């Protein structure tokens, strides 16, 4: 059982507050969606959870240990993070990219062990990209790239998966596929926190929706209450009569 606990976390960039007094406790087995308009603090919250940004106030704990107190590699073994900008500087092979998820597990100057290879194979399978293993990343479509990068974050076998807009710029089929992958990971007992804009998708897959507005957690609960008509109107400035309806699109 893993817990990621935020206690009154705040983060300022200069005078601008990106996150204000955020408290929440996330537990393994949950698929948590972070939603909110652009600039509401979703990426900041994920960064703080990943231990990549130090909060100005408050504290983030992973199972009672402040994240800042963990060694870099130890933290990286427990928390995997996928940034929104899904590019590779070099034309690497898919297998090489997915193998990067094993970096926190590798001993200095050692090569991939059989355990590492098994983890990579499992991650490729779960993300449905085994057939692309020998392809070069730059020859893939954006949907395939997104799945390969998710495989990279799965291969770490971390307890906590943090993903910043993994469904952005994807067609409906790939959006559903990505959410199915994440749901399966949550069902296996991982804690999955994903920032997303597609509200119908979130309403369908998430167990818990955290709504951010101007750096403040506005709502935190099941989709039906977090994405009610009133909240959506206030936060997003759009109208959704009767609240957001879970998407009825299905994978064939």
């Amino acid at each position, binding site marked *: 059982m893993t817990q990621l606990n935020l206690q009154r976390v705040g983060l300022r960039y200069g005078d601008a507050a990106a996150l204000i007094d955020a408290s929440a406790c996330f537990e393994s087995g949950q698929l948590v969606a972070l939603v909110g308009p652009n600039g509401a603090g979703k990426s900041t919250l994920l960064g703080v959870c*990943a231990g*990549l940004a130090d909060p100005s106030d408050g504290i983030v704990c992973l199972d009672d240990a402040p994240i800042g107190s963990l060694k*870099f*590699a*130890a*933290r*990286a*073994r427990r*928390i*995997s*993070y*996928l*940034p929104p*900008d899904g*590019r*590779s*500087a*070099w*034309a*690497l*092979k898919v297998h*090489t*990219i997915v193998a*990067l*998820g094993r*970096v*926190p597990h*590798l001993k*200095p100057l050692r*090569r991939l062990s059989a355990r590492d290879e098994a983890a990579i194979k499992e991650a490729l399978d779960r993300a449905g990209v085994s057939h692309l293993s020998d392809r*070069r990343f730059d020859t893939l479509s954006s949907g395939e790239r997104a799945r390969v*990068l998710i495989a*990279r974050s799965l291969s*770490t076998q971390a307890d906590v998966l943090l993903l910043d807009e993994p469904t952005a710029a994807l067609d409906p089929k790939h959006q559903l596929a990505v959410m199915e992958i994440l749901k399966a990971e949550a069902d296996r007992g991982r804690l999955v926190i994903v920032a997303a804009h597609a509200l119908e998708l979130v309403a369908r897959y998430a167990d818990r929706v955290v709504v951010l507005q101007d750096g403040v957690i506005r709502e935190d609960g099941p989709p039906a209450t977090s994405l009610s008509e009133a909240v959506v109107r206030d936060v997003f400035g759009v109208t959704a009569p009767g609240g957001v309806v879970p998407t009825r699109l299905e994978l064939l």
Partner: protein
Amino acid sequence: MTHWKLNAGLALGLVGFIALALFAGDTRLEVDHFLGALSGDESLGPLVMRELRMPRVLLGVLVGAGLGASGAVLQGFFRNPLADPGVVGVSASAGLGAVVALYFGLSERFAFAVPVSAVFGAAIGVGLLLTLAGARASATTLILAGVAVGAVATALTGLLMNMAPNPWALSEIAYWLMGSLNDASWNEVRFASPLIVAGVALLFLTARGLDALSLGEETARSLGVEIGVLRILVIGGTAMAVGGGVAVSGAIGFVGLVVPHLLRPFVEHQPAALILPSALGGALLIVGADMATRLISGPGMPLYLGVLTALLGAPFFLWLVRATQRRAP
């Protein structure tokens, strides 16, 4: 060992070039001379072999390996195929450091002054570059920052040459800056080898971090890579590998640009796997190019190694600028 075939091939090629370079030249040498050199024979042939050819070739191997490895690591760190110790002004900074030591006569008081000063110059150069460009530099920012660093170093070097006390000091600095292994002796090897070997060793430690950086700085950090440590390794490694080389051979450009770029497809574009082949390939290129300059040079008209590599490398650089533009508009 990943890509061991490529590395073995390069190593074999390097050994072949070393053998060629040892025996080719104005003075024809035979295997007997080589054996004589090893056993301390004092006649002319073995003497030429031991006191001229051997240190020159060995120095070529060291300088080339340092430049090749630095190029591979700088490209990996900046995630940019245009990075090279020469292009981004590190060689010029090392040159400035060495010229300062020469100019103020520090080398007469302290034997290691020139190499140490060159390493300091190179370290200041890389440090300045990282500060100006930042680790997530785009191609444009990187090249501009490099040009700026190089311009400052060249300007200060020019100032020192401008105020040179006599024409001989001036021409000595000028010829030295053109880059060559003409003055190679065991003394130079003794100066440069500890620095270059230590520098290349530091560069090898960056391997895993460079791989992780392929997916960007945030991903690398989330994978537990300490960017600050990586940056120090890159600065220290390049400064020692390039500074040590520049101190004994002057600025030899474009090796660190061309070699990693040509070898990258053979290691499936993986930055970590590129360091060793680039070191071997850089050594091979310098030994070969230096042998070419020796054979081309006529009496009284020496062709400088740095001039040759620039003549070959600059058009390649132009082509590379075009190619990267087309790939990422």
